[in-house]
């Protein structure tokens, strides 16, 4: 039986591609919650529209994905988080943005809404309100000799804003509580009624370090909805850009993690390699971060002969230098002393949260959307997905090193087989509204996008789920028992997105 059949779903009212979506009743919703709670299904995403909540679930045994929709005529629905904690912040967000009450939710506090927007439930029944004075009740931590350290939202480095409340016993962290939402820009609100050109630019500005992956995921969902066939050359160029983005981010973070353990020489060396990647991207595609290069239907930048030579040179340089940097990392005792055994993420939690990216794969979760969902062109490419079980900072570093090697191999295959041809297919008008979804593996993990496009080609609703949603809560868990001074190191090894999460 399919997921939808097991949930007693009605026949779909509208075709949704590539994964089916159907309306379930409260019993079907409860059944899905029990499957999630027992770890039989994974929660991929949870979002809302006015008077309906949607959840995308995946059966890891069969690989099947389906979207369940629960109408909430009376403004409320049964909260999944009371059985499946990974839904907690998503349901708090649904309440903030749409005013739909997650009945039974164990946490009554707002999440993205800091009381400063001047409007309540901006994406639902928006009501103007006077800005409320800020107040937020952090969770209690009680015990003798505990003290608290509040950090943020403006941090000491060049990083994004968020607030961390540490409760410590001496140097040891007893509890970390995050408060996020500071960079909430209302992207999903801005998308409503936008045409696809503007909407994909917004998607590409959801998390700047993943601008390619977001545009890739948005384009894939729109193309699924509109049944557009992307030209083969564009399909491969997209993957090429996505792998360059992955390499650049992994290199930057590899150096930055070592820098947080005061090993500056690695930071300098990785910084040089990262800069070479960005310069190659600029030479090939005209933008260092390759922003706005992926559009619905294809790509806007082509790779010429000079670009191929630049890339071959870049890959040679990485292949020469990376093994030596990896060896230096592995043989430097002062560095290993910091990274081995620090910030351990329990594999059971990674699995429960369906935690993607290097964080999940360093804690034994063998999931990579490129391999599992096998979207084009990765179904044609040969690569491995490295997985480790230790779950510490060291494991996350090694996953990244191995993924750089795999990305280099992928780019070589793309350069070898890149066919001549068109860069972009025409985006045809449809006469009905269409729905599409996609999951694309960014450097940080799987980015999930769902959208409904109106008959005139405007966005009716688009949801973008950053991998960080299922990673941020795990940082709170992984940091427990570590010393405060190791927080930057552990945090950098996670490197969750603030902007992608806050949206």
């Amino acid at each position, binding site marked *: 039986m399919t997921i939808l059949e097991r949930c007693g779903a009605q026949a779909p009212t509208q075709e949704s591609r590539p994964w089916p979506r159907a309306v379930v009743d409260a019993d079907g919703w409860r059944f899905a919650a029990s499957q999630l709670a027992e770890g039989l299904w994974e929660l991929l995403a949870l979002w809302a529209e006015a008077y309906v909540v949607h959840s995308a679930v995946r059966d890891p045994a069969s690989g099947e994905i389906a979207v369940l929709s629960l109408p909430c005529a009376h403004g409320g629905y049964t909260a999944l988080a009371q059985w499946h904690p990974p839904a907690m912040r998503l349901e708090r967000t649904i309440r903030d943005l749409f005013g739909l009450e997650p009945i039974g939710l164990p946490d009554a506090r707002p999440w993205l809404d*800091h009381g*400063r*927007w*001047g*409007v309540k439930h*901006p994406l639902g029944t*928006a009501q103007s309100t006077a800005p409320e004075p*800020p107040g937020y009740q952090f969770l209690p931590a009680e015990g003798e000799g505990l003290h608290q350290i509040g950090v943020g*939202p*403006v941090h*000491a*480095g*060049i*990083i*994004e*804003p968020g607030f961390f409340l540490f409760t410590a016993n001496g140097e040891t962290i007893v509890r970390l509580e995050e408060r996020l*939402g*500071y*960079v*909430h*820009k*209302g*992207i999903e*609100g*801005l998308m409503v009624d936008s045409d696809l050109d*503007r909407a994909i*630019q*917004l998607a590409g*500005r*959801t*998390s*700047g*370090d993943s*601008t390619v992956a977001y545009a890739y995921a948005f384009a894939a969902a729109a193309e699924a909805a509109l049944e557009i066939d992307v030209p083969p050359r564009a399909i491969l160029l997209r993957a090429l850009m996505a792998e360059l983005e992955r390499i650049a981010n992994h290199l*930057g973070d590899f150096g930055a993690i070592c820098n947080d353990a005061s090993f500056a*020489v690695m930071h*300098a*060396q990785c*910084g*040089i390699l*990262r*800069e070479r990647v*960005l310069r190659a991207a*600029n030479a090939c595609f005209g933008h*260092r*971060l390759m*922003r706005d290069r992926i559009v619905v239907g294809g790509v806007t930048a082509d790779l010429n002969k000079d670009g191929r030579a630049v890339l071959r040179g870049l890959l040679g340089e990485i292949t020469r230098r990376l093994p*030596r*940097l990896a060896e*230096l990392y592995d*043989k*430097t005792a002062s560095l290993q002393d910091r990274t081995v055994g620090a910030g351990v993420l329990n594999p059971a939690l990674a699995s429960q949260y369906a935690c993607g990216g290097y964080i999940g794969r360093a804690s034994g979760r063998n999931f990579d959307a490129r391999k599992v969902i096998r979207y084009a062109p990765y179904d044609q490419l040969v690569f491995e997905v490295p997985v480790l079980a230790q779950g510490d900072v060291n494991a996350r570093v090694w996953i990244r090193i191995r993924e750089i090697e795999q990305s280099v191999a992928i780019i070589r295959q793309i350069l070898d087989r890149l066919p001549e041809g068109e860069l972009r297919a025409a985006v045809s008008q449809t006469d009905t509204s269409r729905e599409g979804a996609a999951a694309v593996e960014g450097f940080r993990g799987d980015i999930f996008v769902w959208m409904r496009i109106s008959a005139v080609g405007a966005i009716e609703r688009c949801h973008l789920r950053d991998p960080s949603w299922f990673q941020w809560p795990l940082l709170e868990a992984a940091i427990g028992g570590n010393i405060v001074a190791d927080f930057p190191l552990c945090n950098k090894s996670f490197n969750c*997105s*603030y*902007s992608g999460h806050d949206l």
Partner: protein
Amino acid sequence: MRNILLESFRGALTEAPPDADGAMLAELANSLNERARERLGRSLSIRQVDAGSCNGCELEIHALNNAFYDLERFGLRFVASPRHADVLLVTGPVTKNMREALERTWAATPDPKWVVAVGDCARDGGMFAGSYAVVGGVSAVIPVDLHIRGCPPTPTQLLQGLIALLQDKKPRNNCEAAL
């Protein structure tokens, strides 16, 4: 380790400094006076504030510290506290949730101080202008002395802007209140 260190002495990677951008010099001439410059000298401490950015600008600001751009050779360095800073480098459309934090960071920065708004969003809110969650450009919240455009600006564009801060000697007459 020894080999990697020795190798890094072979030939410099550092780029020649770019010329200060003419348009930026003109904007600065309007916002800074000679006295402020004398007090600040030619060495500036920069505090970066993300007031709502997508983190793209942060990536390129980070790149200023790599071996190619090496910001510190110009006497410019990033500091951890606004209390140590001469310059606030602000990115992002200012979100409503970050407005107060930005105002308080600005208030914590000792006078005289400069504010540099980085990126198209920091100029006028960029693509996020008009959102219920966004105030707008940085100048809607605190006075701005210089805008560096781009989405994100390249490290070279950032350098041009920051060098303009150090180089421009032209006096101006109406900045005392802002400083």
